[in-house]
């Protein structure tokens, strides 16, 4: 796995979308892979919450016939937390303050998710 490329993607996302405060990438089971988070955030706990949140949302979408889960967003009075699945094996967390344009975030995130997926799986795909 190319650590530098992963860190670059996370930083680039934060610089592209105004209002992103923190990002993290974790395996689908909640094991943290990389975190670009402030000291006030516990990244390990955040990764575990994101895994549980995405799992719950996926089951909710299934049980209510809402189709394929796209993302989950938790809105609070001081901003929001968005959880995205990265392929079948990982997830990405994006935290933003109340100024972040969430529609803009969803738009910009799509190519980033694809690139992060290929960074995380590139060696496995080669079968090394």
């Amino acid at each position, binding site marked *: 796995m190319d650590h530098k490329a992963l860190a670059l993607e996370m930083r680039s996302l934060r610089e592209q979308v105004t209002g992103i405060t923190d990002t993290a990438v974790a395996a689908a089971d909640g094991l943290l892979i990389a975190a670009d988070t402030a000291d006030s955030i516990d990244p390990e706990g955040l990764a575990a919450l994101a895994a549980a949140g995405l799992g719950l949302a996926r089951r909710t979408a299934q049980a209510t016939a809402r189709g394929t889960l796209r993302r989950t967003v938790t809105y609070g009075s001081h901003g929001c937390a968005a959880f995205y699945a990265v392929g079948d094996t990982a997830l990405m967390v994006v935290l933003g303050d*109340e100024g972040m344009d969430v529609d803009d975030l969803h738009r910009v995130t799509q190519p980033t998710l694809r690139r992060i997926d290929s960074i995380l799986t590139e060696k496995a795909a080669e079968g090394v």
Partner: protein
Amino acid sequence: MSGYELLAPALAECGRERFTGELRIAGSPGGTVHFRDGLVVAVESPGAPGPEALLLRSGRVSGEQWTELVRESGGSRWPATGLVAHGYAGAAQLRVVCVMALHDAAFAIAAGRADDCERAPVAELFAQVAVGESPTRLLREAARRLAALAALPRPVHPDRERPVPANGGAAGPHGALRGELLAHADGRRTSRDLAFRTGRGVYTATVEVARMLAEGVLECPAEPLPIPVLHTPPDGQGVHPRTPERPAEPLLPPSPPIPAALPRRKPGGFFRLRNGIPK
């Protein structure tokens, strides 16, 4: 192009034509200017905290109180009447906060990059001030702020520098604003981020950050802080779906077979017991 270059002719034109609706500015941070009869009644931008963020972040209104106010007002985006009625803010105070936020958002758009703008009519107009601001005055104020910022000994951009406290933050006593900025300047936050975090205007925060950089209270690290990759998947080769080592065993013991039909009640049992009918 710079936000101001695009904003200046677009705002002036909307004013001349007495436009009512939204002027959406695409860019970084970009934003939306709301017009009524050619006057600006609200400006929203991801680059500057709006009145809601200013009230909530300053602790004047709590998140729960805000939720309640929005419910009371029937889902209004700006429950001004409720804020005054509940005594969370005075009417005049609220007007000042709104006008300040409006100018601050215009400054943020003007200081940033703008790619394009388009007008859009709206079904329901969003207004934060009762008496609109003339676009000319809004532009003049934005230009004055940009010039004042550029004239500082160490000018900064609201969305660029990410400072940290110099000398470990051990500088002498500071006022409330400086103290808050020092507490939250962690090398990850820009002036704009600090403005949201502390519930201050972005212009105020940017000017103070510029002064603190000039005085050596803050400094900009040469390299951005590294992003630690804390965990490499066990084989060091990336993530992939788990393959169970042996076939998964059922967690629960096999349940007893479900009978095809409910057992039939035997005649006589309970009825006989209760009514004393002999066998």
